[in-house]
């Protein structure tokens, strides 16, 4: 597939936005259960604002994917059958839920509405946070299923696609939360170790599942279609000599990335280093060294790494229609 940059931006930005919200809410839950010191309410307000900005930027870039962006509103129509339609509903819903959560923090609705038997206080932000968590996970599933749902793209047609979108988004969100915690850290209290620990855990989990999909796609995929089934002639030696046009066509532009196999393989190394290796090292450093610069570098490196990762995700997928477009003439 030809990696569409609008989709690279969309999926990485909303993934980070969703992950950041999950990080904030995880922190709040830990605080609420007294497992962690209390957060500054500004932390949630600023964090949610960043999360909303990321989600909005993602939504904005998605419009560039459309030939007719002015009709985008129509795309909510077929949510019963289309994962794309479901995502288009889930994204604004998650955005709204996260915004409500941030607004509740901003307006200081932290008076406990009820108190559980264990003495844990439940306030409006917790309830809205739970709602937003559900919408965020629905969005992760919808985004992943857009790709995993196409059975013809065997590289994508696996639960690993949804798992990777979820874990990579969560990992990048927790890394951003680490940087945010470093920004809000004071000499007496710092939440950096908490967020850095979770960022490392999710980055490691994502490393395992993303490596699993790389290995699966490299060694375990047997293409279902070949030239024989494509044109229905049972001969092992079929060579295309003309594809019906002397220039390119939509079929050659949309489905071929135009780079060598070596380049794609090099990009795989690049993203493994940028998404996993460098941020992991920097996050470990962030434990001991105070200051904003290390976690910020981790955020930047991981985000650019994720863009490369998404590029590879698209470039790695081999569409069966390519069988009909092997040779210009």
């Amino acid at each position, binding site marked *: 597939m030809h990696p569409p940059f609008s989709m690279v931006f969309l999926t990485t930005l909303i993934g980070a936005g969703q992950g950041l919200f999950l990080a904030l809410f995880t922190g709040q839950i830990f605080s609420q259960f007294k497992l962690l010191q209390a957060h500054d309410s500004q932390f949630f307000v600023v964090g949610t604002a960043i999360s909303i900005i990321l989600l909005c930027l993602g939504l904005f870039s998605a419009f560039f994917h459309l030939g007719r962006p002015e009709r985008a509103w129509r795309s909510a129509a077929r949510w019963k059958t*289309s994962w794309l339609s479901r995502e288009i509903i889930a994204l604004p819903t998650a955005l709204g839920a996260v915004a409500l959560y941030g607004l509740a923090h901003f307006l200081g609705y932290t008076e406990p509405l009820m108190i559980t038997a264990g003495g844990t206080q439940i306030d409006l932000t917790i309830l809205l946070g739970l709602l937003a968590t559900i919408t965020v996970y629905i969005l992760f599933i919808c985004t992943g299923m857009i790709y995993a749902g196409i059975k013809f793209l065997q590289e994508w047609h696996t639960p690993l696609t949804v798992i990777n979108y979820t874990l990579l988004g969560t990992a990048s969100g927790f890394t951003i939360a680490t940087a945010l915690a470093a920004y809000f850290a004071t000499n007496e209290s710092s939440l950096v170790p908490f967020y850095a620990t979770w960022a490392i855990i999710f980055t490691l989990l994502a490393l395992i599942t993303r490596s699993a999909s790389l290995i699966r796609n490299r060694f375990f995929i047997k293409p279902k279609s070949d030239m024989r089934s494509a044109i229905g002639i049972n001969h092992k030696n079929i060579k295309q000599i003309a594809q019906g046009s002397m220039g390119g066509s939509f079929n050659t532009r949309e489905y071929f990335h135009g780079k060598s196999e070596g380049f794609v393989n090099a990009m795989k190394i690049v993203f493994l280093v940028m998404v996993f290796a460098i941020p992991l090292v920097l996050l470990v450093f962030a434990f001991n060294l105070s200051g904003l610069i290390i976690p910020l570098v981790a955020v930047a490196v991981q985000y650019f790494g994720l863009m490369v990762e998404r590029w590879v995700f698209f470039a790695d997928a081999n569409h*069966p229609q390519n069988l009909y477009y092997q040779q210009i003439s």
Partner: protein
Amino acid sequence: MTQLALVIDLNVCVGCHACVTSCKQWNTSGLAGPMVDQNAYGEDPTGTFFNRVQSFEIGTYPQTETVHFPKSCLHCEEPPCVPVCPTGASYKREQDGIVLVDYDKCIGCAYCSWACPYGAREMDAQQRVMKKCTLCVDRIYDEALPEDERKPACVMSCPTSARLFGDVHDENSDVSKAIRERAGYQLMPEWGTKPANHYLPRRKTEITIHPDELERADNPLSKEERKQHNAPSTGPSLDDMTSW
């Protein structure tokens, strides 16, 4: 239920591209148009086509055979491009099984083309909506046309009659007979898309002739012929004479 479709005979297709040009001519000026070309006379010409003829070389030289392979939307009975469309612009007609795109609803997201294993859909670079073969839906029901012209433009133009058009659900239609009697097959059956369009394979027309079929053993003329053998030095030997 009706399922209109094309049956394409690879045995007689000569790869002349008449179906490609007639398709483009009819559809670019009709309901499904325009089918925009860009750089038509430039270095890298490109454009929208509903139908393309591709050529394949089968075998190893010198034992090769060239197969010309017209490819358009196959109007699948289980079209994978339809349920993925977020707007419902991509749909399959109940009454005749034609898969169409409503250009007014299409947002140009290209997701339907990702979900087509045949690469039958092309995004129009100018109109920015997805386009595909309509089976000339604006011809086949047009009562202003004489009845024998109510066929897709590609079928009308094919000089070798390699393209048949009809209802593949009607057992007695020409297309059903052709599929049944001439081993019609579907493309990429492994995906379960059940394409309605079928292809008829290459056939070798051969008959075996034995020498005695060319010369009847009891041919009365053979007696006269044998007499000629009596000419000096060419005639039968003594042993042959005794066997008379």
